[in-house]
């Protein structure tokens, strides 16, 4: 696997304001990476440095091996970008707009028509080819924006909030479209909709206050953020007796009964145990062997939402140091 996007110690200052502190990450060919962060985290500034809108104040970045500053045109030729405020020229018909962008991307005159037809097919907009961009629905305008990004078959796609402001049906369609794109390209998907990342992306990059807090798959982030595995069990039986039985299971570190379910027939217990040990069978054995009733036993995974909030809120505390290492290491 080769590195398609490589950012090293990117920093951007505007006057006295530091928009991006020190951002490093690597993205391999074919990956779809979700880029998360609250508003004002520095996501757009980072993307703008990668896409050549403006150069970084310090640090360097390459797109498909081309330095974004020294070899800016080649780097820009290797990427397709969907800006957050993707407002294609409203007074132009779709096909003519795409021809214009194709010419700007240096696609040869002979290949223009075929290139435009191909991306219109990929984005599903052949039907509206001759309508004015300004008269299309927001979802279709977004498709035009994606079609535009695909022109010239760039190996890297950078999509800045592709589903913001769309209705639920359009969101599903655009997500499916983006998902399909990822199979052959490297995609950065900036968003603050976490479910979007969960459904499309193989890795997430979380940014806050101008710093990358973590780059990893959601599962590995969880492992990193939570030093134990967690299971939830619904058990029928006397609380104290169940507690005792559970605590006796090897590798179990902590058992917390659910306080709210006091009077009910069953009680819920949260069981935490060492990493790397799946002790569900032992837990089930202990409960059933003790003569209690086991209604449910399931692993508790951290949702991306929890991971995100933990990272963003503990940003100044323990999380960032190892996370920054992780970001440097890339994978």
């Amino acid at each position, binding site marked *: 696997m080769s590195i398609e996007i490589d950012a090293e110690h990117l920093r*951007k200052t*505007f*006057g006295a*304001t530091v*928009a991006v502190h020190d951002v490093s990450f690597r993205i391999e060919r074919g990956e779809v990476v979700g880029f998360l962060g609250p508003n004002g985290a520095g996501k757009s*500034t980072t993307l*703008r440095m990668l*896409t*050549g*809108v*403006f*150069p970084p104040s310090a640090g360097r970045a390459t797109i498909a091996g081309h330095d974004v500053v020294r070899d800016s*045109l*080649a780097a*820009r*030729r290797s*990427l397709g*970008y969907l*800006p957050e*405020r*993707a*407002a*294609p*020229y*409203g*007074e*132009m018909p779709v096909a*003519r707009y795409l021809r*214009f*962008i194709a*010419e*700007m*991307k*240096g696609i040869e005159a002979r290949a223009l028509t075929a290139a435009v037809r191909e991306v219109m097919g990929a984005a599903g907009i052949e039907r509206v080819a001759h309508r004015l961009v300004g008269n299309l629905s927001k979802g279709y305008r977004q498709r035009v924006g994606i079609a*535009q990004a695909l022109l010239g078959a760039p190996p890297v796609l950078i999509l800045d909030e592709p589903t913001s402001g769309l209705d639920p049906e359009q969101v599903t369609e655009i997500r499916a479209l983006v998902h399909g794109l990822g199979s052959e390209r490297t995609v950065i998907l900036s968003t603050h909709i976490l479910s979007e990342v969960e459904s499309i992306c193989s890795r997430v990059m979380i940014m806050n206050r101008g710093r990358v807090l973590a780059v990893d798959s959601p599962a590995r982030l969880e492992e990193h953020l939570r030093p134990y595995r967690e299971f939830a069990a619904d058990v029928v039986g006397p609380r104290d007796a169940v507690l005792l039985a559970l605590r006796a299971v090897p590798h179990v570190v902590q058992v917390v009964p659910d306080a709210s379910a006091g009077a009910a027939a069953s009680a819920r217990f949260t069981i935490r145990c060492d990493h790397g040990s799946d002790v569900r069978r032992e837990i089930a054995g202990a409960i059933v062997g003790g003569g209690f009733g086991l209604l449910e036993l399931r692993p508790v995974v951290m949702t991306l939402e929890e991971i995100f909030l933990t990272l963003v809120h503990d940003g100044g505390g323990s999380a960032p140091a190892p996370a920054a290492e992780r970001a440097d290491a890339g994978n």
Partner: protein
Amino acid sequence: MRVIRAIARRELAAYFGSPTAYVLIGVYLVLSGYFFYSDVALFVTFGAQVLSTGLWRFVFVDYRLVTLLVLPLVTMRLFAEERKLGTIELIWTLPVKDYQVILGKFLAAWVFFAVIVLLTMIPFVVFRVFFPFELGPPIAGYTGLMLLGTAFIACGIAASTLTENQVVAAMLTYGVLVFFWFMTWNEGVGDEKIIRVLLLFSLFDHYYNFASGSIQTVDIAYFLVFTLFFLFVSLRSLQSRAWRGVV
């Protein structure tokens, strides 16, 4: 060159796809037609001077005012509108250079102005059918008018790069151009030496020679330098996004 042409073509389509273009062309033609008519009438009534310098001088000096009124309204949208709509951000991520974007837009405004100027030639043609006159002086006048327009367009583009508000861009252009016009009006207060220096910079003092039927290298050079200066200002202004953070 292909990129410059593509941008110019898109801008021209945007001009002619909106009613603003036709209003601006209409205003220019009505005002310049009025000036042409009233100058000819004035010349016939009080004339008896040499047609080649007398009449055309009046006409081209009047066309200058119409150009000053109309061109800032033509150039104001070129960058301001794209920044307001956010379309410019995408342009910066395409494999094109900043100067190509400026030249494309410059070319579009220039062609737009050339179309207007071509249309103003109609009364000249009609007049010449009835009253043959020497072609030299009006050719000099039109050369001057095109150079003047070129300079105005460059100034207007520079103003348009500075703001996302089209009205601000137009007002700024008016301010700069009118300043370059009025700067020699203070003969009464200024030292003679200062006035002589100011005359070198005065926009319209360089235009009067053309209007009077004479093409001089120094005047051509002045307009070209004026144009290049403001195109350079535009380039630097666009590049300032690197440290201003305003795209």
